[in-house]
């Protein structure tokens, strides 16, 4: 018998998600956000160098920085531990489904569910812009799609790890929230404040910034604009000034991807080497 269990788990997970309220609310949130930005004429305004579709895209990405990581964490951390608590996992793992297919099926389906609405919203904005005769910054669009793809991958990996390790859903959600607060705290503003107040060396601040996937994403989003723009934020400016644009773009894609793979591998390892129910 051929081993197609991953395919069937994935299909089942996707079917379940398409029926869930959270998936449609989340899709409407991002789609609606783009529509509102168009309706408010954001593409026609010009603020400190940003204009046209580029301005809309960067605003969209700023929203993603705030919403996407915490959304991914909160929804993903409940998946494995939730199935364990409700005996769904006990049942599924009594079927011819391997441990890795079960976990990977959940991971891949969540990736599709989370990335697709964001990608469609961004693509929709580009198509609508083209229809209205606005110039499309294709290089920016391509970079943003890749950044969103790797950000989703990274936080899904982290979320899976928390979900595999947590004993209860409450514990998992609490851990996800603390992690998110920590990552937000290690963004630009607080880092620079700490540098001035505690006389921390700039290298240490950059080091913290570079290991924080949120900061890497934020800097990556702004990297194609003029690096002297004040909107960039102090740490981003410093990072870019130190490592250069080309290197940073490569880093902002590869680092979250590696982080995502690392956490996914650790979750798989932990899942396969411990009691699963």
């Amino acid at each position, binding site marked *: *018998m051929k*081993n*197609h*269990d991953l395919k*069937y788990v994935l*299909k*089942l997970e996707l*079917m*379940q998600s398409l*029926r*869930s309220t959270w998936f449609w609310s989340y899709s409407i949130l991002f789609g609606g956000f783009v529509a509102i930005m168009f309706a408010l004429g954001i593409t026609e305004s010009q603020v400190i160098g940003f204009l046209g579709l580029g301005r809309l895209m960067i605003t969209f990405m700023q929203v993603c920085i705030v919403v996407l990581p915490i959304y991914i964490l909160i929804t993903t951390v409940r998946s494995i531990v939730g199935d364990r608590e*409700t*005996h*769904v996992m*006990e*049942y*599924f*793992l*009594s*079927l*011819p*489904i*391997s*441990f890795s297919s079960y976990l990977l099926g959940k991971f891949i389906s969540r990736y599709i569910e989370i990335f697709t609405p964001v990608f469609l919203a961004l693509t929709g904005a580009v198509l609508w812009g083209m229809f209205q005769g606005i110039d499309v910054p294709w290089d920016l669009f391509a970079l943003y799609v890749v950044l969103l793809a790797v950000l989703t991958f990274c936080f899904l990996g982290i979320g899976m790890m928390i979900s595999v390790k947590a004993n209860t859903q409450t514990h998992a959600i609490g851990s996800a929230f603390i992690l998110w607060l920590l990552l937000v705290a290690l963004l630009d503003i607080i880092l620079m404040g700490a540098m001035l107040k505690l006389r921390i060396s700039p290298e240490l601040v950059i080091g913290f910034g570079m290991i924080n996937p949120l900061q890497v994403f934020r800097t990556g989003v702004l990297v194609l604009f003029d690096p002297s723009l004040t909107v960039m934020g102090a740490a981003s400016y410093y990072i870019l000034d130190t490592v250069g644009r080309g290197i940073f773009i490569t880093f902002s894609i590869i680092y979250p991807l590696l982080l995502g793979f690392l956490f996914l591998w650790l979750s798989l390892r932990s899942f396969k*080497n*411990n*009691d*699963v*129910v």
Partner: protein
Amino acid sequence: MNTTDNILIEAQHLTKMFKNATVIDDLSIAFGGGERISLSGPNGAGKTTLMRCILGQYLYQGKLSVLGQNPRKHHLEIMRNVGFVPQLAPPLKMTIQELIGFFVQLTDRHSEDFTRIAEKMGLQIQPNLRKPFYKLSGGMKQKLLVAFALGRDPKILLMDEPAANLDPAARMIFFDYLQNYNPQALMILCSHRMNEIAGIINRNIEMDLGKVVLDQKINQTLN
């Protein structure tokens, strides 16, 4: 019946601990093809833990072989030959139609293999096809889970209180079905209602504090 070449499950010095609590204590036992076993005992005796070890869901100390293989290392291969009915029905969100489709694909069986058994126990499949599983009544869920386990025609059947939610008519059909099930298969039934399963079983095992305290063969012709 239980000859060495017919052994489907064998535990040697099997021990399962949760932190400092020993739930299965140095258990050595073998279950063979053709055996219909009643596994009973008070709450916390280790019945469900033993089932979960057999299903490869728990790590353990000692040796455990299911169909000649380690249930942790060869989980997928073993589960192709194991049917399981849990005590608590999982709150699955998919519809009956999707669930049947899933089982058909996963187990390479026909949908009739499952629907025939469910309908025999009184569950009307057609009018309920679009209903999510978790919205069904307890009895309907149990009938479907039984159908999914039996319809795969497994070599090993593990059932944890499988008839608890069934109505009397469905219960009779279910036990009748078990009585006529593949005589080469191994059946392990966890149940507190001994009178109900007395006519089916040919071995009675009682557990307490992680150990077997009673293991007796039952001659069905005398029974």
